[in-house]
């Protein structure tokens, strides 16, 4: 067991003091002079042609400084996977809430009044809300020009349809597998539209300078990605766009990935003579006009031997991506790779479809499509176990992947698998048994998730002449603990306290490239980059010391930020003393580090089905069901997560605690309800409820460490995995409690009561 200085220690977060004293700055706290306020006019129709937009009256309102409509930016289409997204609707609207026009004014009241004065004439078109209907042969096309959209090579739209991506993965011959099976199970599971629920709304401020360069301050989770997306959409060089993050983001969970409010700010800022324009989305706009989690239909067919061995599995996954593709196609890819579950199955076939509908745009959401497939494969696993009379834990242990097994969907050779340890930990801690007390039941679920590969992170570590250090990074802090983890890694290399280290927030002009702070990738990728940069800086410092002490670098030791020769430990020099003695007139030590994942099987160099690491987890839920009301009380959740190495066990636990509660909401009650005309009926926290302190179970987290040979100190990732197995664990527990099996989320009291009475 290696003894580390900072790694593996439950150190308090470096940003906690700022946050508990109210000094932490978020997007809406930034202050600008000469600011103009933007407001957005949004479509009331789910699908309609825009015949005319009359802004004459609005233009004349005193205090209005700019108005913009989509037609002015008709050549601009954005989008990471498929470039289908206009900054403002151009010829038609495709969902209720789509931006149609925007106003910048000297205050918010005038901007709102101006919106009232804009007249838009629409011609309604038939709208489609059901993805299955959208997939039908003669369904009206939501994107008539889809065939002409640019897209990254790995995306495969089906021409002249509403299917913007179809992906297939698999191995073996499923017909053969089914024919050899003793039992074949076929089930369909669905999930609902879910909101991220970050407490901080989206905000952006944009300002042009006289040279035509735009600076955007925005709470976005991938500033370099955003810069690239904006540059591509507008056809301008990268250096003409500068993205600056506020120091902190108040929660993201994938929802702040861009191309929403900042694009409208940019459109307005083009017309305000270099005055900055700010748009703060209202909570309602966050609900209707940012992104949501993909509603899904998962059809899963599994063939097993009577001893529980899985021989074959076919999964058809349909993701309802709403009006624009957003990250839908890559969500579909990633989810499809995990759709068969973390099991060794010789014959597998997965078909993933990403489908347009005239609803709120679906995009990246914690888990990136995998909570939905895990819901399906883990629910069905218990259906199988129940039918065969096999214990749910035993059937999983029998089938889960072992080291060097191949992933059933992508044929990647899998290593660093801590799943068995996760399941066994739960089995041991919970004294797992199937005997249930009155209306109380227990259920288990496990899952795995990959990280987007390839992807790159780069960083600069700057050691100042007084020994303090800065990590210049484009990773963002939205609560996951990024700043603390990166500081811990630098602290480990230089043996300095965390207090000595500042971690920057992103500025794409100054902080080097990072793919994004998503996909649970930051500890691994940026962590590796920081480690390399720290080693680089350390080498330079040790070189100075070796010249001063006149010994080889290998004879030097670092302790508490002081360097000495092992032969003469009484003569120590601090990092500051070393730098100033070498550079009397002043200098920094600059360490650089880049990390880019190289794996075989890269497709088009952009997205590989082979992932540099996978995360594994198992959740066990204990629930009590009230048979008179159908209400479910979650008593306890045990959550075991293989993180590779917990750089900070305190923050890891925090992620598990938070993820479990975040997973309970969509399991039992969260649902965005869409009305007959495609409008969101509950776009507020009044009517869309996320869990409160009174709704939580006892949470027992377990950190399992199955080292990854390439991860920094063996670390992998954790953030998204924590919401993945929860729904199925709860559902399996409900079945154990009262014998009711619900297959569509959320599992509401009504559904339970109805099923219970009908038993």
């Amino acid at each position, binding site marked *: 067991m290696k003894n580390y200085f900072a790694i593996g220690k439950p150190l308090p977060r470096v940003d906690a003091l700022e946050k508990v004293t109210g000094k932490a700055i978020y997007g809406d706290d930034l202050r600008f002079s000469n600011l103009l306020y933007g407001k957005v006019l949004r479509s009331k129709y789910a699908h309609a042609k825009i015949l005319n937009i009359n802004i004459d009256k609005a233009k004349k309102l005193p205090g209005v400084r700019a108005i913009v409509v989509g037609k002015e930016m008709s050549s601009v289409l954005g989008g990471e996977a498929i470039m289908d997204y206009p900054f403002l609707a151009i010829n038609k609207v495709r969902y209720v809430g789509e931006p149609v026009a925007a106003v910048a004014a000297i205050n918010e009241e005038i901007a*709102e009044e101006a919106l009232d004065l804009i007249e838009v004439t629409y011609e309604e078109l038939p709208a489609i809300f059901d993805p299955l209907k959208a997939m039908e042969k003669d369904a009206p096309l939501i994107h008539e020009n889809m065939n002409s959209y640019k897209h990254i090579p790995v995306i495969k739209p089906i021409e002249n349809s509403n299917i913007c991506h179809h992906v297939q993965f698999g191995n073996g011959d499923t017909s053969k597998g089914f024919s050899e099976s003793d039992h074949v199970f076929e089930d369909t599971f669905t999930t609902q539209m879910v909101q991220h629920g970050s407490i901080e709304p989206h905000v952006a401020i944009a300002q042009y300078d006289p040279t035509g360069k735009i600076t955007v301050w925005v709470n976005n989770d991938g500033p370099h990605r955003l810069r690239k997306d904006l540059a591509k959409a507008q056809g301008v060089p990268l250096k003409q766009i500068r993205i600056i993050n506020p120091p902190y983001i108040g929660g993201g969970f994938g929802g702040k990935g861009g191309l929403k409010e900042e694009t409208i700010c940019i459109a307005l800022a083009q017309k305000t003579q270099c005055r900055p324009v700010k748009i703060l989305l209202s909570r*309602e706009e966050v609900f209707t006009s940012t992104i949501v989690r993909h509603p899904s239909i998962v059809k899963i067919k599994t063939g097993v031997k009577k001893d529980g061995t899985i021989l074959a599995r076919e999964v058809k996954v349909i993701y309802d991506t709403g009006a624009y593709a957003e990250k839908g196609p890559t969500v579909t890819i990633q989810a499809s790779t995990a759709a068969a579950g973390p099991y060794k199955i010789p014959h597998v076939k997965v078909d993933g479809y990403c489908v347009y509908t005239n609803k709120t745009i679906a995009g990246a959401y914690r888990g990136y499509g995998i909570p939905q497939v895990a819901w399906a494969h883990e629910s069905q696993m218990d259906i199988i176990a129940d039918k065969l009379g096999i214990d749910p834990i035993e059937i999983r242990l029998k089938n889960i992947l072992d080291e060097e097994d191949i992933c059933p969907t992508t044929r990647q050779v899998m290593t660093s698998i801590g799943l068995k340890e996760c399941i066994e930990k739960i089995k041991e801690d919970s004294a797992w048994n199937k005997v249930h007390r009155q209306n109380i039941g227990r259920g288990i679920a496990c899952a795995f998730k990959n990280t987007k590969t390839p992807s790159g992170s780069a960083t600069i570590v700057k050691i100042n002449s007084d020994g303090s250090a800065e990590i210049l990074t484009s990773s963002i802090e939205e609560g996951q603990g990024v700043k603390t983890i990166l500081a811990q890694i630098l602290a480990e290399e230089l043996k300095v306290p965390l207090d000595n280290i500042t971690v920057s927030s992103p500025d794409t002009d100054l902080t080097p490239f990072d793919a994004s702070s998503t996909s649970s990738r930051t500890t691994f990728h940026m962590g590796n980059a920081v480690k390399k940069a720290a080693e680089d800086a350390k080498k330079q410092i040790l070189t100075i010391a070796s010249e001063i002490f006149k010994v080889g670098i290998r004879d030097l030791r670092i302790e508490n930020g002081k360097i000495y020769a092992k032969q003469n430990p009484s003569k120590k020099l601090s990092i500051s003393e070393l730098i100033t003695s070498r550079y009397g007139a002043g200098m920094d030590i600059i360490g650089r580090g880049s990390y880019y994942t190289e794996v075989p099987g890269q497709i088009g160099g952009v997205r590989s089905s082979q992932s540099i690491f996978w995360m594994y987890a198992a959740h066990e839920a204990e629930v009590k069901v009230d048979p008179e009301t159908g209400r479910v009380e979650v008593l306890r959740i045990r959550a075991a997560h293989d993180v590779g190495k917990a750089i900070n066990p305190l923050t890891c636990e925090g992620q598990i605690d938070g993820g479990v509660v975040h997973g309970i909401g969509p399991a039992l*009650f969260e649902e965005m309800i869409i009305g007959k005309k495609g409008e969101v009926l509950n776009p507020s926290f009044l009517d869309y409820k*996320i869990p409160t302190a009174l709704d939580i179970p006892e949470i027992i987290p377990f950190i399992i460490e199955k080292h990854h040979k390439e991860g920094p100190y063996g670390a992998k990732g954790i953030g998204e995995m924590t919401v993945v197995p929860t729904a199925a664990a709860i559902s399996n527990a409900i079945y154990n409690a009262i014998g009711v099996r619900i297959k569509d989320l959320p599992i509401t009291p009504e559904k339970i009561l109805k099923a219970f009475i009908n038993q």
Partner: protein
Amino acid sequence: MLRKIKEFEYFAPSTLSDAISLLAQYNGNAKIFAGGTDLLIQMKQRKLTPEYLIDIKNISELNYIKYNEDEGLKIGALVTHSSLANSEIIQEKFNILAEASLAVGSVQTRNKGTIVGNICTSSPSADTPPALIALDARLKLISAKGERIVKIKDFFTDPFKNILKETELLTEIQVPNLPPNSGGAYLWLPKITAVDETLVGVGVVITVDDAEDNVCTDVRIALGSVAPTPMRAEMAENFLKGKRINDSIIKQAAEIASNETSPRSRAEYRKEMVKVYVKRALTQAVKRIEQ
């Protein structure tokens, strides 16, 4: 959609008569502002755009909870849900009201919102009205023209509508003493999470001849959120009166009560929950008689 609140003129009178004069003067264009937790949301939604706001929070004579053996309980217009729930006399003698107050929103909402304000908003899903109806409360309404006392069960007319005139101020809630051998309970099922609007609210006050005999001499079953306004389940009440209370009688009364309701949304489930919660509330109320 939420917007900036439209501009208005603000008054903060320090006497009741000043407040009433202002109401009369700005007939229809003024709104009374106490807790404001409902009012300000409606003003942000532009559902209400009063030109004048009359803040009554400086009228100290409206902030009281008084009790005596003869007249019972009197609650002034400025009493917040928190004060009500924390009041010892209410916990001791009218605990059903404390229970209903605790069902309202979160701590922050309860600290600001007044029970009178809750009544005046007249949401079909409000919690304090069913409790007050079960307690057979009365309301004092004052205007420049004089005052009137109305029974709370006659106060609500439609969802979010009541008999309060635009020139009237609801200044006091009066709750008569409960006869001996009485017990009450307020139970509620939230729509979704613990801090949420009420899906089904049941307020029950039951009186028996004596604790051993257990024959019901009087009962009021008030239901919230299952009809356009808070309502009494009068058929269920009539079924119970004169009968010896036991589990089977309670269950039957609950079913009768359920049939009296007319919920608009989630109707099937709500009606089923009325059965469950009337049963539980009656059981609880009867238990409290014995204590």
